[in-house]
């Protein structure tokens, strides 16, 4: 769906031995891709890996078109997997965390404990900033859903739960929770703090994990808010609830009252991209200049049936092609389909 990009960069020191191939002068760096299933199949059973595998050797054999994974196991046993690979173009999303207006950093555990409240089937979640540095997480509800029949879960995290908070107040982004969960599981297991860089709705959100030998980036498209930026951004039909004050326990009752009343009224119509017809989204005049400068694409995950804006190639009635106001963030290495 081209609305997500993840990269894991391992420094040479991550490995016991790292011997890069000396590229012949004039040729490009070698890049290839393998089938995820085939690769993961080698490491299928984690418990048995821990029990019986001593070390793993990874070798690229370009002439044979094979990626060799050799597991050195107990009792002198060697398991060699020769995986077929495809040469490909470099796939790299263009993003600049410095340009983001908001940054949050928290231990993975804090975020994991927060998302546990959302059902595993939930597709999108909205992250927002409120007064007093509070951060909210709420499930995203489709605009077609009837407000009075939908369950809304919202939770607030205090500023002190985070290692750092540098956010523009009142900002809100909606992104795919499923993809985020994957990264969160890894972050928790490796005990690394997670940094979230985000900007306006529509701009990609970047999650990073930093270690001395590993750099992880997950870039997700966010739902764009296409009405003028002067309106307070709303991402679903339910009106924004007031953030609980610092005397939260005392305010609980009034907060709950506010919750009940807002769900019984209809909210203003959702300003999100109408998403039903494969039309290129109307360009946001304010963003246009900035776009041309740094080639960022307002990544809008469209209707569930098609999501492809992040890497360009909006689905127009005529077939895939770039909408005039959008530039491709990262070319699909498979080529246009």
């Amino acid at each position, binding site marked *: 769906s081209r609305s997500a990009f993840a990269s894991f960069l391992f420094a040479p020191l991550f490995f016991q031995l790292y011997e890069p191939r000396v590229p012949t002068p004039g040729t490009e760096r070698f890049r290839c891709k393998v*089938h995820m299933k085939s690769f993961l199949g080698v490491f299928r059973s984690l418990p048995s890996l821990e029990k019986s595998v001593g070390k793993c050797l990874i070798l690229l054999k370009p002439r044979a078109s094979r990626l060799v994974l050799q597991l050195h196991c107990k*009792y*002198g*046993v*060697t*398991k*060699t*997997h020769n*995986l*077929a690979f495809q040469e490909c173009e470099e796939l790299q999303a263009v993003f600049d965390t410095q340009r983001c207006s908001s940054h949050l950093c928290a231990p993975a555990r804090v975020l994991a404990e927060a998302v546990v409240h959302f059902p595993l089937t939930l597709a999108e979640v909205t992250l927002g900033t409120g007064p007093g540095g509070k951060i909210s997480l709420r499930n995203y509800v489709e605009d077609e859903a009837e407000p009075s029949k939908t369950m809304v879960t919202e939770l607030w995290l205090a500023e002190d739960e985070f290692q750092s908070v540098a956010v523009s107040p009142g900002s809100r982004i909606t992104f795919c929770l499923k993809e985020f969960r994957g990264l969160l599981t890894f972050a928790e297991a490796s005990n690394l703090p997670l940094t979230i860089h985000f900007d306006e709705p529509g701009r990609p959100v970047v999650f990073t994990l930093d270690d001395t030998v590993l750099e992880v980036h997950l870039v997700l498209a966010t739902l764009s808010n296409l009405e003028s930026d002067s309106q307070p951004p709303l991402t679903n039909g339910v009106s924004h609830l007031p953030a609980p004050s610092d005397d939260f326990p005392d305010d609980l009752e009034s907060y709950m009252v506010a919750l009940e009343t807002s769900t019984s009224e209809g909210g203003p119509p959702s300003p999100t991209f109408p998403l039903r017809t494969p039309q290129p989204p109307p360009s946001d005049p304010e963003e246009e200049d900035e776009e041309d400068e740094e080639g960022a694409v307002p990544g809008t995950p469209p209707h569930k049936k098609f999501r492809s804006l992040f890497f360009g190639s909006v689905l127009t009635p005529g077939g895939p092609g770039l909408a005039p106001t959008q530039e491709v963030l990262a070319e699909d290495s498979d080529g246009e389909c």
Partner: protein
Amino acid sequence: MSFPAQPPASGEPYVLTASLDNARHLSSLLRAVHFQDHATCFATASGLRVTVEDAKCIQANAFIQAEIFQEFAVQEESVIFRINLSVLLDCLTIFGTSSLPGTSTALRMCYRGYGYPLMLFLEEGGVVTVCKINTQEPEELLDFDFCSTKVVNKIILQSEGLREAFAELDMTSEVLQITMSPDKPYFRLSTFGNAGSAHLDYPRDSDLMEAFHCNQTQTNRYKISLLKPSTKALALSCKVSIRTDAEGFLSLQYMIRNEDGQICFVEYYCCPDENITEAEL
């Protein structure tokens, strides 16, 4: 516990009578060869042999020697019949398959001879079940003619080292290729699946290697779907012997220790796959 001897009304004795205090000693071995519905049972004074075949390429035998039984009597030189193994196993495990320590199903097996059904009397906790399973005309069995003088390569491995390998075999590969050699890679299992090729190498000096007698480098391929059922026998066993002859026929012999520490054997014989294309190394 004992059942009174049952002389049939006609006065003919049973040609086969056997009693087991713990039916699991029989059922677990039969499960290790249960890859087809039908099996041939062959009883002599030495014990019981149950044979299952498939595709005229593979044969598995489970041996339960007379000493395992509390009572084992064969009136003729040999008794042979074909029976539905799935039904036999269902009956043997009629009281359930969970093995709680201290509880066991007692078994008495009786067979009057050609044309008669196999009678099973099963008892657990005072409850008795009687089963009558129809027997069939025995079919001709394959004779792999595998004797120790024809063996070219032989190794004996501790099953522990192979169990995981067999359970994780790449089933998208049509064949399992076995290489045995006095030189590297010594003993290698290879598959060629959708993801690519995979090789599992066991060095001759591995702690898992109990015996290594390889005289000639041999590489043979076998249909993986035929060998996969042997994983059950491997799971039960403590040791396995792997032998090949000059034609590439494979013999796998599994040494299985039952709950009482008694030793039984299961063996698998397999023909090499004739459609050989160049092995990918």
